[in-house]
C-alpha cells in the first residue's frame, strides 16, 4: 500500500516536471518521425531483395522504430536524475521514509507513460505512409515498448546513480546504445546480414523484441518468436528494475 502510494506521488511529481517542459515531448517524437520521412522510403526499393521479411516496408520498419524509441527514450532519462542528484533532491528523499523502490518506480512509470504516448503518436503518423496495423499487433507492440522502457530506464537510472556525472554517463549511454541498436535489426532486418553478424545479434535481447514486433505486425500473433520476444523483454524489465532498485536503496556516498 505504502509502495503504491509513494510510487504514485513520485509518478505525479515527475510527470508534472515532464509536461512542464513540452520541448522534451516534441524532441522525442520528431526524431522517429524523421526516420519515418527520410529513411523508410529507402526501404521500399529493398523490399524485393531475397531475405527481406514480408509485410511491406512500413510494416517491417515501424515496429523496429518503436523499439528504437524505447531504447533511446529510456537511455536519456538518467540526465534528469543526475541533475536532481546534484541539487540534493535525491539525498533529501533518502532521509524521508519514502519507499526506495517507489523512488525508482515513480520515475520509470513516468518514462513508461511518455514512451507509450510517443509510440501511439508514431503509429498514427505511420498509417498515412502505408502502415497497416492490427489491434493485436498494436497491443503486443506497446507491451514490448513498455517492457523495454521499464527495463532500460531502470538500468539508465542505476548507471546515473553510479556515475553521478553527465560527462561519464553520456559516453557510456551512447557507446552502449549504438551497438544495441545496430545489432537489433531495427534499421535493416538482420536476415540480410552475414551469418556472423546474425550470430552476434542473437546475443542482443533487443533483437528478439524486434523480431517479435515484426511478426505480430504481419499477422503471426501467436508465433513462438512473439512469445519469446515478450518473455525476454519481461526478463529484461525484471532484471533492470532489480538492479535499479538495488542502486536506489544503497547509500549514495
Amino acid at each position: 500500500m505504502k509502495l503504491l502510494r509513494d510510487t504514485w506521488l513520485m509518478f505525479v511529481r515527475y510527470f508534472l516536471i515532464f509536461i512542464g517542459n513540452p520541448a522534451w515531448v516534441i524532441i522525442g517524437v520528431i526524431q522517429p518521425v524523421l526516420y519515418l520521412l527520410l529513411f523508410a522510403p529507402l526501404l521500399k526499393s529493398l523490399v524485393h531483395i531475397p531475405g527481406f521479411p514480408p509485410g511491406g516496408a512500413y510494416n517491417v520498419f515501424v515496429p523496429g522504430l518503436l523499439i528504437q524509441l524505447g531504447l533511446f527514450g529510456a537511455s536519456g532519462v538518467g540526465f534528469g536524475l543526475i541533475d536532481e542528484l546534484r541539487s540534493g533532491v535525491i539525498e533529501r528523499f533518502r532521509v524521508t521514509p519514502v519507499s526506495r523502490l517507489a523512488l525508482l518506480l515513480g520515475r520509470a512509470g513516468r518514462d513508461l507513460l511518455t514512451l507509450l504516448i510517443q509510440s501511439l503518436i508514431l503509429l498514427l503518423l505511420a498509417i498515412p505512409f502505408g502502415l497497416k496495423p492490427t489491434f493485436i499487433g498494436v497491443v503486443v507492440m506497446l507491451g514490448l515498448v513498455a517492457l523495454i522502457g521499464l527495463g532500460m530506464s531502470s538500468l539508465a537510472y542505476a548507471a546515473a546513480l553510479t556515475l553521478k556525472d553527465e560527462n561519464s554517463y553520456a559516453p557510456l549511454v551512447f557507446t552502449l546504445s549504438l551497438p544495441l541498436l545496430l545489432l537489433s535489426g531495427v534499421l535493416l532486418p538482420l536476415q540480410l546480414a552475414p551469418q556472423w553478424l546474425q550470430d552476434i545479434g542473437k546475443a542482443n535481447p533487443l533483437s528478439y523484441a524486434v523480431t517479435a514486433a515484426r511478426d505480430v505486425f504481419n499477422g503471426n500473433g501467436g508465433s513462438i518468436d512473439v512469445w519469446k520476444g515478450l518473455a525476454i523483454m519481461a526478463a529484461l524489465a525484471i532484471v533492470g528494475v532489480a538492479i535499479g532498485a538495488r542502486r536506489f536503496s544503497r547509500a549514495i556516498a
Partner: protein
Amino acid sequence: MIHTRGLRRTFKGRRGAVEAVAGVDLDVLGGQTFGFLGPNGAGKTTTLRMLSTLLPVTSGQATVAGCDLRHEPAKVRERIGYVSQEGSSYSEVTGRRELAIQGRLYGMNRTVADKRAAELLETLELTDCGDRKTKTYSGGQKRRLDVGIGLMHLPDLLFLDEPTTGLDPQSRARMWDEVRRLRESGTTVFLTTHYLEEADALCDRIAIIDHGKIVAEGTPEELKREVAGDIVLVGPEGPTDKARDVLKGQDFIRELTEEEGDLRLYVDAGETALPQIIRLLDGAGVTLTTLSLHRPSLDDVFFRKTGRSLRETAP
C-alpha cells in the same frame, strides 16, 4: 536527542582503509542548538550523514531522536529533518509543490500537506514566490525553502549542514533569525558551519571535530574560557627570532606561538601584560610595528584545538 558512543566510519580507499570518523562521543540534549565545527575533511559531514541515516555506521552506538540509529533507521527518519549543504529543491518545481510532496512522503494527506506548506511559506516569507519554479529564487529564498522542506513534518530534530554558506550578509541574518525561532519553538537543531561567529551567536553548545575525533566540546563561553585569558599579537619589525627569545622565558606568558610573522601570546590579563611586553622588547632593542590585544574568540579556540584557523580551511 543525540547520544553517540565510539561512533566510527571507515572508507575503503585504494590505499587501504581511511578512518573518516574515529570514535565520536556526542550528547545533544533536546531543545538545544548544537554547533558542529571542524576543518574540511575532519569528519564533520561524514558524522552528519551517519546521524541522518544517509551513511551506514561502521561501528559504535548512537541513538538519534530516541531511536537506535543502527537498528531503527526508519524510525529515526520519521523524527528528523535534514537540510543538506547542496540544497534540496529541484529547479523545475515550485516551492509550494516541493513542500507539499515532502509532507505527503511523511504520510500527510493532501489537505494537511497543502495547509502546512502554506503556513511555512508564510513564516519563511516565501508566499510571494511560492508558486514560481525554484530556479527563479535568490540564494536566500532557496535556502529558506530548504529549511522549510526539512521542517515540513514538524521534526523533533533538524540537521542543518552549513545553512548560511554562500549567502549574503542580509540573508545570513535572516537565516539566523530562523534558527533562533526554531530554538524558541523547542526544536533541537544540529548545525555545521564554517563561521565561528555564527556558532557563537546561535549555539548553546559546540563541538569541534578534527581528524575524526572530538577535540573540544562545551558552551561557547566555556570553550573561550578554556583558551584562558587574553591574546596579545606582537608584530616585530623584521624577523621574530629576537622578540621570541626575549619573551620566551617570561612567567606571565602562558604560551607562545608564531603565526605569519607575528607572535601570538596567551596571557592571563592583557591589560597588565601589554606594558610588560613593551618594556621588555624596548629594553632588548626590538622595534615593534604592531601590537594588539584580543579577547579570545571561537577562532582562537579553533586555532588552539586544531592548529589551523577556520578561515584558511573554508572552501
